[in-house]
């Protein structure tokens, strides 16, 4: 925005012929920036408009219609901030749900990071018989949709007596996620092999090479995996819906869904709950966005 404050009009008036070229160049650069910002603002508005609509709805008192003939995009009256408090305390045990979800999310991230980094390391750095075939098998498993596995997996977990616990939502992460293994392997392959050799000469064994050299150098891709796991688990509705039956164990996504499925949906509260639910993901993205973008850019393009 700095360029816009440079008062381009004044600069556009040429004082001496020699400066004309420079001024014209500057004017063009400024207009380019103006256009850029206009486009970006437009795109941002499109994305933020629904959020603004949700906020409008969230601030309405009970029973006031939310779906008006002409959509109310912006809040006109800031009446019912209490709705947010009600969501957090009265309507449902929202904080409880938050904690539940966090348990699942954190355990899943831990599981993904441990299992996928180990398997990815093996595929990327170790030479063993059949590694290629195994890797292709792994890739093929990515093609199987989760829906196809849903029923057999459910039966398996019921058999294990895990129904109604968090285990079916957490334990699969510890057994590896094909997509993340793929990402991590691709990333680790780009780390120079000489580092392994140097480490071996320095006396490190394979485990130490993994732990002290390769893992610290893989933080960008690990961040990507962690953030994706966070988003997927945080927003996951189907998993908790299938496996959880006890109200006190519900996740946020499940709580939200339950709000809507009632006959008389309290839309104002639903929207307030929605907005609250989004906050953690926005925060996470906010804090890791640099690493995330760098990580995504560096993953899978090489190797």
């Amino acid at each position: 925005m700095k360029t816009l404050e440079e008062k381009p009009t004044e600069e556009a008036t040429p004082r001496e012929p020699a400066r004309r070229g420079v001024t014209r160049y500057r004017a063009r650069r400024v207009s380019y920036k103006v256009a850029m910002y206009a486009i970006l603002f437009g795109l941002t508005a499109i994305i933020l408009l629904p959020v603004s609509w949700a906020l409008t709805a969230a601030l309405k008192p009970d029973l006031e219609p939310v779906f008006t003939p002409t959509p109310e995009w912006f809040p006109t009256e800031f009446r019912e901030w209490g709705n947010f408090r009600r969501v957090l305390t009265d309507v449902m045990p929202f904080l409880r749900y938050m904690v539940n979800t966090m348990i699942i999310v954190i355990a899943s991230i831990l599981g993904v990071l441990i299992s996928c980094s180990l398997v990815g390391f093996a595929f990327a750095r170790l030479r063993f018989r059949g590694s290629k075939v195994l890797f292709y098998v792994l890739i093929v498993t990515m093609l199987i949709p989760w829906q196809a596995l849903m029923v057999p997996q459910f039966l398996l977990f019921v058999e294990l007596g895990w129904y109604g616990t968090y285990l079916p939502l957490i334990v699969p992460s510890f057994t590896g996620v094909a997509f993340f293994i793929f990402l991590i392997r691709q990333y680790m392959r780009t780390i120079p092999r000489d580092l392994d050799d140097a480490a071996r000469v320095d006396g490190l064994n394979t485990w130490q090479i993994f732990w002290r050299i390769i893992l610290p150098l893989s933080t960008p891709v690990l961040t990507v995996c962690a953030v994706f796991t966070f988003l997927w688990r945080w927003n996951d509705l189907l998993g908790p819906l299938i496996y959880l039956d006890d109200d006190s164990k519900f996740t946020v996504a499940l709580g939200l869904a339950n709000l809507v499925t009632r006959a008389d949906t309290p839309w104002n509260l639903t929207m307030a709950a929605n907005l609250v639910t989004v906050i953690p993901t926005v925060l996470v993205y906010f804090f890791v966005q640099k690493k995330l973008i760098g990580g995504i850019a560096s993953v899978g393009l090489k190797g």
Partner: protein
Amino acid sequence: MAEITLRGVTKVFADRTEAVHELDLDVPDGKLIVLVGPSGCGKTTVLRMIAGLEDLTDGTIAIGDRVVNEVPPGDRDIAMVFQNYALYPHMTVYQNMALSLKIRKLKKEEIHRRVRDAADVLHLQEFLQKRPRELSGGQRQRVAMGRAIVREPQAFLMDEPLSNLDAKLRVQMRSEILRIQKDLKVTTVYVTHDQTEAMTLGDLVVVLRKGQLQQVGSSEELYERPANLFVGGFIGSPAMNLVEATVTREEGGTSVRFAGHRLRVPSEVLDARSELAAFDGRPVILGIRPEDMEDGALVPGSDPGSRFPVSVALREGMGSDVFLHFQIDAPPVMTEDTRELASDVGDKAVQELQEQASERRATFIARVGPESRASLGSPVELHVDARKLYFFDPASGRSIGEGRDAAPVHAAGALAD
């Protein structure tokens, strides 16, 4: 410190290429030995086998009295410097140097002392808390050296450690490495494809070609008494001029004829190369080093039998010398050796060699004194120091008369050809 002994070391890779063939080598305690040869000659493979990063197909490697074939790299008590330094990017310089000591569970104070000492030797004190990416190429190189030094190992292994530096820095670091090696007196195996580096650094130089040992010796030995055509052509810059010639015994002495020229071979050369007599009337390959030729005008009164006329095609003044390029009326020597030597220089050299072969005109280079008035296109008579002529057997490429003699004393001799 210890000597390193290789016996019958052979490496065949999974794709069945034989990188190293029955190599016997003794690296004396405390000496710096340089493995040199064109790319693909197996020198790095040898080094990696000594380090334990590559398994042996056959043979044994001993460091000191201990055969280390089955010993993992970390337990061989060696340190290695890699071509691209292989510094751990996420660690500081201090951590890079300390890691191997930490793994060995040395006391903190001891680690601290060793890293400080190494940093002093290498002038790295102010960089200890920096990360490798904040350092220049030369500084990274020094850190890589430091990582090797702190180990206080029995041997240093260096894999082209200077090849990523610019020319000036390379010369500087070369003398630095030499100084450190002499100070610490650690047995060192140094791999390079740069023959200048090999000649200036090595107590002993080992020339390898296609996994086979060609010759082991001091720089002087390799230069003065190359065991074969390959070593003769590889050592020396500009390279030795080679041409097909015949040796004939005539009245009044023996002479060598090439490209319509004739040079008298002094009797001392014949005495030293007794095998030459057997080549009477048969083709040989004659080698003349550029520096063994001189502008005839600068050597007045020299024996007419040691002179031949040429026409200068290119004059390169170097200040201290003048390089005269000229063509001779004979095809360049085309053997497997010369082809490989050319391909080591580059594709352009191979192309040039082929062009010269098709035109049947080889290019020679003479390195003459700076006072030489020889100019482009002018006829010049060149004087050759006939005592320093080299002769090779065209069939085997072996040096005639001293191939066997040149076998090194303190290192295992050449292999079966």
